[in-house]
């Protein structure tokens, strides 16, 4: 239809602006940060910066960073675990057991919080978890003799807040792949002699793995890079790799150290994505 030259211009004109923008705002900054992570100090205010590996070395030398990295990963595993345990049955319930007219409304209810501000939702948990909060009052109304319950500023509080944040993702991705399963497959398995449990294990579960997988990625990756949730709900217990990185940029102003730690975090994320790639590739949107 179009001649080759006009085609090229059309393509450039259509994709150029978006990708130029992405380059300036995402790809160049990531490169700049990679460069910074190899500097001794940030080259501002007339300071002399030299190339060195000292910030990566610091990660290896100090147990502190490794312990925190491990904590962040563990937090990611905990949150992902609870999201699966709570979210998958919910997605299954929505996709297979809730009658049609209720389904859409319930799904909307589930994902609605995800459209509202994440920070605000994390903050709202302080109302529930603190001493004298909703949880404490409710429990002590029933069991007045119990000690006051103050979950706020604990590891558990961070897990609860993060599960609350990411549960809608998990439910949504699982729901999408569960409701795409052709009902005739399940009927076919039943006529072949499979009980409900066998149908779940051999048909429903394997066919919903892509959704489960997407949910795991969408939960685990952001959680290991989280810091705001830990600050608000974790208090002193909330020191993570993410909060340490934040400190390097906003409190300590050791940007090269922060950059190196960020890249270690990024490397972990990339490793996870690379491991997930074979499954991901098969389910990229629009092939």
């Amino acid at each position, binding site marked *: 239809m179009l001649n080759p030259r006009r085609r090229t211009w059309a393509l450039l004109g*259509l*994709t150029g*602006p*978006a*990708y130029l*923008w*992405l380059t*300036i*705002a995402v*790809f160049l*900054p*990531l490169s*700049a*940060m990679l460069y910074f992570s190899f500097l001794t100090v940030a*080259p501002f205010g007339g300071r002399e910066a030299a190339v060195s590996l000292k910030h990566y070395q610091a990660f290896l030398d100090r147990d502190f960073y490794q312990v925190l990295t491990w904590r962040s990963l563990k937090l990611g595993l905990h949150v992902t675990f609870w999201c699966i345990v*709570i979210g998958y049955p919910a997605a299954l*319930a929505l996709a297979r*057991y*809730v*009658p049609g007219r209720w389904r859409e409304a319930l*799904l*909307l209810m*589930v994902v*609605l*919080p995800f*459209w*509202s*501000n994440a*920070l*605000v*939702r994390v*903050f*709202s948990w302080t*109302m*529930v978890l*603190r001493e*004298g*909060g*909703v949880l404490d009052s409710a429990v002590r109304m029933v069991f007045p003799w119990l000690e006051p319950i103050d979950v706020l500023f604990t590891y558990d509080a961070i897990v609860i807040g993060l599960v609350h944040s990411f*549960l*809608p993702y998990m*439910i949504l991705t699982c729901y999408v792949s569960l409701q795409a399963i052709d009902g005739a497959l399940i009927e076919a398995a039943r006529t072949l002699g499979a009980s*409900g449990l066998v149908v779940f294990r051999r048909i429903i579960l394997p066919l919903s793995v892509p959704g489960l997988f997407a949910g795991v990625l969408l939960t685990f*990756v*952001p959680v290991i890079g989280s*810091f*705001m949730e830990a*600050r*608000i709900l974790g208090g002193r217990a909330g020191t993570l790799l*993410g909060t340490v*990185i934040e400190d390097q*940029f906003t409190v300590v102003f050791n940007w090269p150290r922060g950059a190196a730690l*960020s890249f270690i*975090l*990024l490397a972990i*994320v990339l490793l996870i*994505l690379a491991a997930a790639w074979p499954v991901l590739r098969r389910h*990229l*949107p*629009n092939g």
Partner: protein
Amino acid sequence: MNGGAQAVTPRARRDTGTWLAGIWLALILGFLYLPIAAMAVMAFNESVLYELPFKPTTIWFERLAENERLIRASVNSIGLALANTVIATVLGTMAALAFARYTFRGKTLLRLLLFPPITIPWLIIGTAMLVMFFWIGIGRGLHAMLLGHVALSLPYVVVVVGARLASFGPALEEAAATLGANPWQTFRRVTLPVLAPGVVAAALFAFAVSFDQFVISYFLAPPGVSTLPVEIYSAIRKGFTPEVNAVSSIIIVVSMGVVLLFARLYRFGGVPSEGGGR
């Protein structure tokens, strides 16, 4: 119905399943909404320390009206989100059109490049932007935040509009061409109207991404300039007050209201139902 004899039929078991499903979902909705409700209720409680018994008041909302920092932050947030919506929707829709209607070398690579902005934790992207913008002199401020927000919104727009484009294929455009429409007329009078629901959905997405965005804004906010989430965060860190509850409640109600309205208009997912089934 001759029910009695068939009490243990598959139907009875299905009913049990539906009941269990209902209970489970109710518990989850409770989990999701309980804290939000508690926060909203406390916004109407007189005690600064959230103490009970509950004494109703609207004083915290009145305080908001006098809080100039919050008002300025709100104006910033809304302006930023609007600018972001326009830019990201236009640029993203253009890219989506290129992906949907042309085959070219490097398309897969370009598609893949959409993933980093949404898969890399915001903490990393936000600090990277801070480093870069500071280094080359763009500096911090609303303009820097706009740069960042658009970059994060673009991938969503491309995916949402792309899904809509994929749903109708080039046949409509080819039909328009055979009827004598030039490419621009085809786009104006055929592609765009059919694409509209997808574009509206993408725009809403872009608005929400920007309006909710905390991490990027946090790193790119110079002293004295902030957005609503950044302002709320610093308020929380200074110690909670019911005023934070009040402004948070307003944000929640407004954003949920917009989504509900949108869901009513467009059905779920932004694509009006076109029958068919599988």
